[in-house]
């Protein structure tokens, strides 16, 4: 990871230790086998570490740490492929903390009692008190207790809507990583206006950029773990009387993965530095696109290089590809057309 100081190392160590304690990928497998889409205990424990509020202002009860700390957090967490929407929750908590959200709700969110997620309000209309419309293909749709909606309908602004509203229905589908995706419909759901005008627009734009940065960090982190496990296998697995990692065909492909991951990570941390500058949107889109492409290569090759055992459910290597598929599907931002709009 680029420029490593003591604080960075502390984040990486504590996140790695946390997921080692809570079972890592074995936890994800167990939840999947049980058909559970939530793990409240893990979520609360993560919140107790301060992670949900890592970017929220201190005055709101957050840690107010730099974006690079949150990127390191998600890059490290992703090595255990949690399917929970940590990235989205971190972004939503930051947003709520910056716009004077109701303190009781913010406390619930920061302590992990409730989950708030950002929701892009395209296709939704806010009439001043109520929200209507349909938001299809929404990631983590079954996880949220609150949606922070950015809307450009009758009124423009940010609105907090409870998922317990009777005027809301959700059609959720399981995703391969253990999460959910689906359609959320609002039919005059009540909510709280949190802000309007250019301030709210800027907050929503920043949230979009941050979410992309953190998801890029997840893609890089999970791909690095898949690659590390693949390298171990190349060193350990023997055929024709020698480790398969001594074969040049595999060495060169491994080198290509290394090139792509190392450069994707460098671009990620340049994009993190660019947050708050006028190039932040391009930087985030660029790094998201690169990170997903690099991670796709690493995860596909991880399975190929493990051979038949890589194709089994028993080996954990497939969990990285499945999480990546969900991340990839969570946004269309890797599409160059999105990037060309912001150049």
């Amino acid at each position, binding site marked *: 990871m*680029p*420029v*490593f100081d003591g604080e960075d190392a502390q984040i990486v160590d504590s996140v790695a230790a946390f997921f080692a304690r809570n079972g890592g990928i074995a936890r994800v497998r167990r939840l999947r086998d049980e058909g559970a889409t939530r793990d409240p205990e893990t979520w609360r424990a993560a919140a107790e570490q301060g992670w949900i509020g890592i970017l929220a202002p201190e005055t709101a009860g957050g840690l107010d740490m730099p974006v690079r700390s949150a990127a390191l957090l998600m890059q490290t967490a992703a090595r255990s492929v949690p399917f929970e929407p940590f990235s989205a929750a971190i972004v939503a908590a930051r947003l709520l903390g910056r716009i004077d959200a109701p303190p009781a709700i913010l406390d619930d969110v920061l302590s992990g009692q409730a989950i708030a997620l950002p929701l892009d309000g395209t296709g939704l209309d806010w009439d001043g008190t109520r929200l209507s419309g349909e938001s299809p293909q929404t990631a983590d749709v079954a996880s949220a207790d609150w949606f922070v909606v950015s809307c450009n309908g009758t009124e423009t602004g940010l609105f907090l809507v409870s998922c317990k509203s009777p005027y809301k229905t959700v059609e959720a589908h399981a995703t391969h990583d253990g999460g959910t995706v689906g359609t959320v419909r609002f039919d005059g759901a009540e909510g709280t206006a949190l802000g309007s005008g250019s301030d709210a627009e800027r907050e929503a734009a920043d949230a979009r950029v941050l979410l992309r940065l953190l998801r890029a960090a997840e893609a890089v982190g999970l791909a690095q773990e898949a690659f590390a496990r693949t*390298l171990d296998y*190349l*060193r350990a697995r023997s055929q024709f009387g*020698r*480790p398969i*990692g*001594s074969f*040049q065909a*595999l*060495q*060169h492909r*491994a*080198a*290509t993965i*290394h*090139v792509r991951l*190392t*450069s*994707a990570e*460098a*671009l990620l*941390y*340049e*994009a993190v*530095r*660019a947050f708050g*500058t006028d*190039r932040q949107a*391009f*930087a985030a889109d*660029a790094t998201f*696109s*690169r990170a997903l492409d690099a991670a796709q290569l690493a995860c596909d090759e991880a399975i190929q290089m493990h051979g038949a055992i890589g194709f089994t459910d028993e080996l954990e290597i497939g969990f990285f590809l499945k999480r990546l598929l969900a991340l990839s599907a969570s946004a269309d931002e890797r*599409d*160059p*057309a999105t*990037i*060309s709009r912001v*150049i």
Partner: protein
Amino acid sequence: MIRQESPEETAFRDSVRTWLEDNLPRELRHLTFRPRPEEIMPWYRAVSRQGWIAPHWPRDEGGMGASAVEQAILMEEFARAGAPDIPSQGLNHIGPMLIERGTPEQKARHLPPILSGDCIWCQGYSEPGAGSDLASLKTTGRIDGDAIVVNGHKIWTTWGHHAQWMFALVRTSDDRKRGITFVLLDLDTPGITRRPIRTIAGDDEFAEVFLDEVRVPLANVVGEIGAGWSVATSLLDQERLHIGSPLHANRALTRLRGLVEAMPEGDRDAWADSLAHAEVLTETVTAAFLDTHEKFEAGRSPAGESAFLKILATEATQEILEIARCAAGPLAAQVDPAWNGDRRLDLNEMALQSRRLTIYAGSNEIQRTILARQVLGLGGR
């Protein structure tokens, strides 16, 4: 560059842009080949007088001592202006080598002419039988009194027929690596025959050099006799920072951008996605360059690590040129350049030229083997 510049860096960028606009001759802009010495060296000297010829050299050796960001700014602006390729063996290879390993006499004699552009250097490493397997080189150096007498055949020597001096590896004993000695060779010495070699792009970019009983004074040995391999490889990681710099990717991007901007509006929209992809590739190379450079300066770049930069930068450049070639359409096929304003559109020649990027300075296959073995811990046979 997506990194935000300081006000000083932005002022520097502006000064570079303005100076290039005022001083870069029209006939040298947006070329697809390296012009001949009589055309390019006046430009080299002009950049030298401006003080920007050696951004990466330390200040007390006559360089700029520039940061990674300042170096990236220079590359971006030189590429944007369409500045031509200058001979770089002196600036990027033997210069830094002498700064690290040369005697005070060698430095005093050779560094100033590199900076001023009064001496062009070439690299005498490859031989007909020693390419990727460089340590198998057979050119001999026989010690005779105060000289090494060199016999052999060097090849693929970039600008070998234009250079005044060559730094070369010669075999002074049978030991595979410890039998190699690093020498500085005045190409006016009797016994040297040079022949240019025509490339697929139709120019004489490299040459072969025949050495027949060439007497090289022992004072021109860098390091000890038999230490040539360690001298030649000691700066490999540093050298790869230049070979893997974002310069070529930026050049290719400038070319693509020029093509897309010149298109009718409908076509321009159709190519916007490809242009965006090329922008992302270029920024990826720049980010990797800054990161590796800064790690290197902090002493945190492990040996071999920078091999990834050469692979990244050269393959990204080829990918962008491929997009540009497609964007140029039928025009790309012409041997004689088509023109768009003052910009040449002979994309195929550039695509041909760019094939060498993944071959020179250690083919990308060799770089991948280095990464696999030195960085990724995958063993040999």
